């Protein structure tokens, strides 16, 4: 744990719970994508490539939230934003054009297969990051 300097606050409190949730999804999404791509990429290349992309975004968000420093904060901002856009876009497309997504990804149907956690997670992440940046500005 590092000394809490400006811009280098350690991840504390609810942020740690968020990191744990993100870590679970990072592992789930990356493993799922690895299996899909290794065993049957040809069946649904778009869906599986998206799975892999989602997995990488989760890994980046986990690291960005867990590590300290402004670079990691920016990475977390970017990852959570991309994730929110991703789950909304893929969620909508998967419902509108089911044929493009024959096999589901974490983001299909707004993450229904995962209890809609993929939809809630980026919102929580962005709220947490926002409160953090407000706190550091006030300090």
């Amino acid at each position, binding site marked *: 744990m590092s000394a809490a300097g400006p811009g280098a606050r*350690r991840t504390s*409190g*609810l942020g*740690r719970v968020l990191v*744990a949730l993100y*870590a679970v999804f990072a592992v789930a999404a990356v493993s799922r994508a*690895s*299996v899909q791509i*290794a065993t049957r990429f040809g069946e649904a290349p778009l869906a599986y490539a998206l799975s892999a992309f989602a997995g990488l975004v989760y890994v980046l968000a986990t690291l960005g939230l867990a590590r300290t420093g402004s670079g990691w904060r920016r990475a977390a901002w970017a990852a959570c934003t991309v994730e929110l856009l991703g789950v909304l876009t893929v969620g909508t497309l998967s419902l509108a054009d089911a044929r493009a997504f024959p096999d589901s990804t974490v983001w299909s149907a707004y993450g229904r297969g995962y209890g809609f956690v993929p939809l809630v997670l980026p919102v929580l992440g962005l709220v947490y990051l926002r409160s953090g940046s407000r706190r550091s500005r006030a300090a």
Partner: protein
Amino acid sequence: MSGTLVAVVCGLAAVMGGWAVVTVARDRRVGRAHLVGLAVVELAVLALVVDGVATLVGGPRPVELATSIAYLVVAPLVLPAGAFWTLAERSRPSTLVLLVACLAVVVIAYRALELFQVTR
């Protein structure tokens, strides 16, 4: 894979997760008793993994073989990782990490059972 064993794992993990919530509600910190509790759940998880490996060796094998193996590999790592992350900062909300880990174990055990039921 034994459905009874999956039920035991899910039950123990649910109790442990509930305990974490009670701990947060009463504003207590994670202590030795919690670690003993986690160790008990972990033992059940390990029993499930052994059972799963035995099924993979003895057959019938699940259709989603790669995914099933991934579940067996990841399952025993979840609670130690959660315990590590909780203990790294003994704050009130940090205890909720244990709840996340326990819920993950419940989901993993249940999904593993589903995976192992679909065989060739």
